[in-house]
């Protein structure tokens, strides 16, 4: 029979084939095994986070229950004062200064790119908030829930007060988190550096942030007793 002639060659070829089959089988198994384990890790992390949050909230409930009526309302008032920006605050944080570019604008580029804009400030503030900043101010103007950051000619208006560069942004929060959020690769600092805009970030143990100076008056809005919108 012809098959006998090529015994050795067939053995060799079958060896290679078996080798390849097993390698392929192993790789497919690896791919299958790796996906669920990632999912498990992700879920475990989420569970930890939820548990930590739960503990915090329970502690808050205990605190509030333990207090008498006056102390309770005082604590709530304090919280509201802090949230609304009615009191000056201090704590660990960062001071960021941003100034227009010292580079000479190239002919082919828009000179606007070398100036600090309201958008740049907004991006920095957004990044700081995402990193857990508890209070923010720009050139002495406390940022509240109603604050705007808006272009006003060559100046930027915050709380309807105009100020010119250099801008000093103060933030209270976890120092490392705040510094990293600004300095992360491809982040705000990186994109501003391209145009030579000077952004310096200084972590400090004690940053003082002023209170919101203007008064907030609600002329049109009234409080509603409805919990959900009814049609």
């Amino acid at each position: 029979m012809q098959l006998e002639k090529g015994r050795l060659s067939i053995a060799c070829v079958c060896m290679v084939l078996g080798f390849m089959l097993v390698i392929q089988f192993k790789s497919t198994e690896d791919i299958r095994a790796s996906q669920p384990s990632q999912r498990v890790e992700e879920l475990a992390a989420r569970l930890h986070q939820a548990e930590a949050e739960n503990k915090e909230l329970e502690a808050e409930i205990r605190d509030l229950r333990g207090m008498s009526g006056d102390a309770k309302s005082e604590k709530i008032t304090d919280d509201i004062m802090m949230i609304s920006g009615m009191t000056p605050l201090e704590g660990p944080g960062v001071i960021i200064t941003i100034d227009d570019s010292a580079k000479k604008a190239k002919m082919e580029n828009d000179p606007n790119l070398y100036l600090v804009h309201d958008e740049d400030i907004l991006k920095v503030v957004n990044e700081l908030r995402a990193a857990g900043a508890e209070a923010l101010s720009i050139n002495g103007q406390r940022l509240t829930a109603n604050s705007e950051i808006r272009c006003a000619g060559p100046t930027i208006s915050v709380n309807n007060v105009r100020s010119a560069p250099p801008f000093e942004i103060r933030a209270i929060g976890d120092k490392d988190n705040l510094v990293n959020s600004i300095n992360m690769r491809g982040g705000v600092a990186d994109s501003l550096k391209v145009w030579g805009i000077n952004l310096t970030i200084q972590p400090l143990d004690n940053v003082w942030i002023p209170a919101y100076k203007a008064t907030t008056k609600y002329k049109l809005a009234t409080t509603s007793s409805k919990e959900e919108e009814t049609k």
Partner: protein
Amino acid sequence: MIYAVVGLLIGGALGFLVPFGIPAGYSSLFSVALMACMDSVFGGIKAACSGTFDDKIFISGFFTNSLMAAFLVYVGDRLGIDLYYVALLAFGLRIFNNLGFIRQHLLKKH
């Protein structure tokens, strides 16, 4: 036939002992090469059944087919042509054709 089975077993054992697998990026190339190898083997068995088996053709076909298949798929990948599916389809069709031939041959013999 015993040689073939022994070869398969040795190859499989080697594959288990080797600590590395195929990186995800090359898995499609490797699977096409594997299909080409299987096609060659079934082609070889068919040739042996019909009595036209030649070990030179068999071995050269085995290696050239698998390398060329992987290479073509790689080139197709670079050019944005999904030759991967084409190769799988072509080899798959041939494997089933050969299987059919072998089955008929064995049935006629016994």
